[in-house]
């Protein structure tokens, strides 16, 4: 028993650690880890991962919310879109065959790899567009010299449309889909880089929670797997966030991308050979 439990914990701690360092979250790494290495069925791995994503999001959000990096109003409005997608995705996960899910997961990993390679610098807008102004979505971020600088938010409709897709991916594949959420807020809504990361992290808890509730109510969460995975990924993510300020993430990015592409190819091949 200790071998199985120790193996699950080691796998989860590793996934949480790499997920925190890469900024992609533990779900991207724990699902393939459980499927390929622990021979857990895909839908069980997805359920366990969703639970762990809820835990890591809550843990990581505490400091971001307290320090003002999370834009709570943007999060609340966009959660309407992500929850709709997540519930739909989690429901679909119960009817889609495991090989198709694995193939979709492989494609999602390639998208995450592309995102990790192409994420670029900040472009802060001084003014929100009319809709975002009416919803009071703008905020303030500290400048290099510590003075608070206001930022505007635009294109809420475009961002919300991408958030529905992020929600479906989360509920269907058991990931936080942070790569899509951050891309929507960075590229479409023009939020500052750190604000979009913190806000995405905060929203991930509700998105994954919506999916986890569907799985839990359906009886698709295996406590024997989900409990050690949740504890392990949370511990790994905590360690990763502590190490993060002391490592050169830019240099590690290539390594993360190689790992993502290799896992995507392995999962894609497994799925393709069974379809």
């Amino acid at each position: 028993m200790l071998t199985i439990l120790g193996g699950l914990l080691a796998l989860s701690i590793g996934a949480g650690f790499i997920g925190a360092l890469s900024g992609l979250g533990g779900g991207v790494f724990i699902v393939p880890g459980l499927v390929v290495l622990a021979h857990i069925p895909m839908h069980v791995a997805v359920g366990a991962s969703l639970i762990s994503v809820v835990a890591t999001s809550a843990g990581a959000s505490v400091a971001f919310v307290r320090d003002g990096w999370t834009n709570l109003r943007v999060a609340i409005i966009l959660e309407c879109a992500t929850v709709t997608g997540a519930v739909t995705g989690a429901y679909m996960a119960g009817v889609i065959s495991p090989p198709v899910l694995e193939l979709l997961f492989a494609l999602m990993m390639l998208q995450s790899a592309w995102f990790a390679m192409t994420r670029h610098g900040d472009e802060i807008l001084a003014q929100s567009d009319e809709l975002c102004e009416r919803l009071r979505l703008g905020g303030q971020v500290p400048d290099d010299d510590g003075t608070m600088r206001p930022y505007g938010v635009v294109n809420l409709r475009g961002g919300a449309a991408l958030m529905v897709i992020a929600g479906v991916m989360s509920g269907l594949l058991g990931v936080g889909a942070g790569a899509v959420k951050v891309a929507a807020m960075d590229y479409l809504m023009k939020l500052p880089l750190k604000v979009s990361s913190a806000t995405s992290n905060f929203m991930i808890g509700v998105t994954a929670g919506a999916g986890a509730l569907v799985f839990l109510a359906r009886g698709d969460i295996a406590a024997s797997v989900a409990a050690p995975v949740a504890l392990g990924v949370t511990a790994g993510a905590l360690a990763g966030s502590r190490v993060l300020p002391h490592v050169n993430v830019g240099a590690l990015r290539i390594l993360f991308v190689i790992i993502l592409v290799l896992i995507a190819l392995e999962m894609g091949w497994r799925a393709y050979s069974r379809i």
Partner: protein
Amino acid sequence: METSIQTGEEDRILRTWTPLILRTILILSSVILVVGVAQTIVKAPGFYVQRFRAIQQGHLHAGESLATLAAGIRHGDSHAITTIGLYVLTLVPLVRVAFTFILFLKERDFVYVTATAYVLAGLIAGMMLGRIG
């Protein structure tokens, strides 16, 4: 001007209470999960291996009712304790969204009351959808 004062006060309350809610539920669920896993190691190692192998074969034993789980906890059943820990963890988004809903309702900020009510309804609908299958 009135709107910005209201927004500032709402934000202050959210930034104070939200981290507290997140941390409290996370710690509570982690403690329950650790107790459940530790008790499994001590009391039911063979049962765990048996259940893990069944899961690998795609056989799940989940879907217990809350009444069954409560009875399991009274008898010190490690599986029931672990499952309750997972349930508590999923309360994180529910409680957090319910809190913001109440706050916005109190402040009569109806755009955000509607948004949080929608999210809350989505979470509850997800549970009901899962029950249906």
